[in-house]
């Protein structure tokens, strides 16, 4: 009995320690973002409480001088177009692969399979030349095209779902005179709703957080997205940790809200995405 009690205590203790390890760095940044530069120069340490919990001056500075508004705008455009494209392309590919038999099908599947193993980071050296030759360098089209074109995980998620839709639905529609396009549009696509939700969430978070591709392909300052705009805080705000912290909090906040609202979908989405 006592041994059990000790074990229980240890379990809770380890959970609390883990929670502190996760939350403490974030909490320190949140506290810092609410301090005035006066307070910062007092050098009171990272974990002291700000004098005024409603001091939002740093947020205004970060938002205006850090060009966060245009960053959120650019990110929103990229998100919308890239996700719509991914959903369309992924579901079409999944439909074709699951519902048709055709020559070279094995080869097509193998192409998608092998591509999933290639880390995108490695191939950028040569992808850059291709993106450049399309004239997409330093436009919003570069990240959009790359997010749409290199997303194998979404195709897997759709494939799992298409497979679970009974084929008798297609057959009865075919008897009613529907062709393959009508079946995709009227039957398969609407039934894919849960898969679409999963892909939108997983892809949305991935795109929102991506740093490498926008950093590489959109050096112009007015094409900043969330990540690259925040990254540029290093220069002008070099030692102004209160402003940098406010910027970081502004970036983390939308993620936190989405996570709290859609927890269950997010867990399932990332699980399905990773264990393809």
């Amino acid at each position, binding site marked *: 009995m006592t041994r059990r009690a000790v074990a229980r205590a240890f379990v809770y203790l380890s959970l609390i320690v*883990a929670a502190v390890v996760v939350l403490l760095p974030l909490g320190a940044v949140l506290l810092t973002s609410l301090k005035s530069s006066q307070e910062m120069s007092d050098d009171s340490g990272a974990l002291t409480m700000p004098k005024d919990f409603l001091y939002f001056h740093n947020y205004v500075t970060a938002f205006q001088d850090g060009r966060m508004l245009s960053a959120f705008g650019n990110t929103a455009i990229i998100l919308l177009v890239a996700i719509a494209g991914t959903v369309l392309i992924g579901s079409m590919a999944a439909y074709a692969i699951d519902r048709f038999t055709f020559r070279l099908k094995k080869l097509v599947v193998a192409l998608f399979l092998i591509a999933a193993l290639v880390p995108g980071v490695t191939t950028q050296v040569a992808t850059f030349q291709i993106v450049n030759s399309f004239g997409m360098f330093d436009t919003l089209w570069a990240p959009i095209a790359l997010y749409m074109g290199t997303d194998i995980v979404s195709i897997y998620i759709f494939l799992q779902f298409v497979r679970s839709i009974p084929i008798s639905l297609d057959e009865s529609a075919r008897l009613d005179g529907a062709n393959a396009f009508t079946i995709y549009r009227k039957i398969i696509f609407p039934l894919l709703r849960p898969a679409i939700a999963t892909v939108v969430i997983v892809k949305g978070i991935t795109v929102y957080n991506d740093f490498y591709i926008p950093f590489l392909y959109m050096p112009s300052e007015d094409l900043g997205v969330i990540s690259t705009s925040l990254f540029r805080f290093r220069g002008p705000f070099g030692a102004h940790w209160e402003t940098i912290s406010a910027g970081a909090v502004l970036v983390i906040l939308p993620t936190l809200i989405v996570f709290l609202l859609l927890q269950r979908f997010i867990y399932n989405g990332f699980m399905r995405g990773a264990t393809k």
Partner: protein
Amino acid sequence: MTDTTEKAAFRAAARDGAAVPQPPPAPRRARLWRGLTPWLFLIAPLALLIIFTYAPIANMVAYSFTDWDGVSPELHYTGTGNYTELFTREDLFQVFFVSGYYLVASAVQIAAALYFATILSFNVRFRNFFKGVLFFPYLINGVAIGFVFLYFFQDGGTLDTVLGLFGYHSDHAWLGTSTSANVSLAGVSVWRYMGLNFVLFLGAIQSIPGELYEASELDGANRWHQFRYIIAPGIKPVLSLTVILSISGSLSVFEIPYIMTGGATGTETFVIQTVKLAFQFNKTGLASAAAVVLLLIILAVTWLQRRLVPDDRVDLV
């Protein structure tokens, strides 16, 4: 469907000795159309796949045998010169040792994820809260994480403050020396990615039928026995997948060190070096060779895993 019924009608007509009508040309066109249909759906996905994945790989392999700088119209074929340079120049080879820090960190990460997944799969108070807290770092923007931890490790930052609370006052510059900086950065990477491993393990553990635990308890098994004989075998596929992801992840670390230190003080990783070679020093040929080497290593590791741990999952088709 229509095709066969028409044929049947046609045959029936022929059998009945009626005047054989000319077969309408529609069926053949329909068959051609049906053969084309899947390709109409696949054309966009395949085009994107080839343009943005396979063409770059092919080009990369081609560039790796040249001294191209990525800009000028002229390039020279150098054979395997880039590859020999990569493996013989010590400063280029150095970056592989940095991956070692991340590999060790991955082992710590997997152990921690496994531990938390196991205890949170049993009944614990505030389970959802802890699950959320452990997973959330995985969802945070990498640049924000970089800044959070730059603040964490700086002089008089979060870490020094916390150590001060325990009466330990250090003047240690956490990102100042190579070893300390790499350990710090690898720690950040554990902080960031443990949540994903944890959720994967948790999902695998929760898909184990509950009766097994009840039955084992009747047989007098304790928690350790349950972990050893029920949970461990149940999560083997996910575990091997996680190991692969960790190895390829350790080799392709980029974001956190690039954002936090820019690769200074010996924290340069393989990918940071490749990116710098390609886009700062215009050594596209050498960078391509480096990328090809990394790609081959990752493919080899994956292939090994497939051979060693054949999974019984249903294949795609």
